[in-house]
C-alpha cells in the first residue's frame, strides 16, 4: 500500500518512520480498505479521536477523515500544515466520524499528536454534527 499512485497522490502528507505501535488519540494515520488495492485514492489520512485505553486494548478505533480541501463550516476543522505531521493545510470532516478496525490503519503516525485546542475544536464539531447547537470556536 505504500507505493504507487496512492502514495503520490497523498504526497502532501509525510509519515514519520517509527516502529509499529498502537495509535494514540490526536495522531494522524493512513487508513485504507483491506482487499481493495486498486483504489488509486487510498490510503486516506485520518485523525484518531477515540480514547487511548480503547486504542491500545481493542481491535477498532474511531477516526475523523482528513481531506486535502473543502468548505469550512460548523462540522469542519481546518488543520494547518505541520499539525499532526501534515505538510499542507487540510480539513477534518468531523461529520464523517468513523469507527474502523485497527487493521484498516496502514501507516503512521504522521507526526506528533495535534494539540488539545484542536482536539477540543474537533469534539465540538462532532457534537454539532450530532445536532447540538454550539457557538463557533
Amino acid at each position, binding site marked *: 500500500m505504500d507505493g504507487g499512485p496512492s502514495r503520490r497522490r497523498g504526497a502532501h502528507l509525510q509519515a514519520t518512520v517509527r516502529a509499529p505501535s498502537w495509535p494514540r488519540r490526536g495522531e494522524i494515520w493512513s*487508513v*485504507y*480498505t*483491506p*482487499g*481493495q488495492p486498486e*483504489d488509486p*485514492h*487510498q490510503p*486516506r489520512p485520518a485523525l484518531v479521536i477515540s480514547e487511548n485505553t480503547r486504542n491500545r486494548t481493542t481491535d*477498532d478505533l474511531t477516526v475523523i*477523515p482528513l*481531506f*486535502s*480541501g*473543502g*468548505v*469550512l*463550516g*460548523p*462540522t*469542519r476543522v481546518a488543520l494547518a500544515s505541520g499539525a499532526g505531521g501534515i505538510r499542507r493545510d487540510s480539513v477534518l470532516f468531523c461529520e*464523517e466520524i*468513523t*469507527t*474502523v*478496525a485497527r487493521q*484498516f490503519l496502514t501507516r503512521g503516525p504522521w507526526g506528533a499528536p495535534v494539540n488539545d485546542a484542536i482536539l477540543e475544536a474537533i469534539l465540538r464539531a462532532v457534537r*454539532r454534527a450530532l445536532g447540538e*447547537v*454550539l*457557538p463557533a470556536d
Partner: protein
Amino acid sequence: MTDEMTARAARRAKVGATLDPELVAAVDRYVEGHPGTDRSGVIDEALRLWWARQQAEAMERQFAAPRSRREIEERKAWTAVQAAAAGRIFRRR
C-alpha cells in the same frame, strides 16, 4: 444541565443593550407570569434560538457548497473505507 452549561452559567457576562421596548415589555410580562424566570434567562433563550438558526444556515452552506473534483475522489475513497468498516462491525454483531 451538563457540566459545560453549569460552567458557562457560572461565568456569565454582563452586557448593556438597547432593545425594542415592546419586546422588553413582552419579556417582562412573561417573567411576571412565570415564577423562577428572569429577563436574563429569556434573553439567553432568545440568543440560543438565534444561534441555532445561524448554525443551521452555516450547515446548509457547508453541505450545499460545490465539491471540487479532488474532494469527490477523496470522498469516494472514504465511502469505500466506511462501507467496509460498517460491514465488519455489523457482521460481528
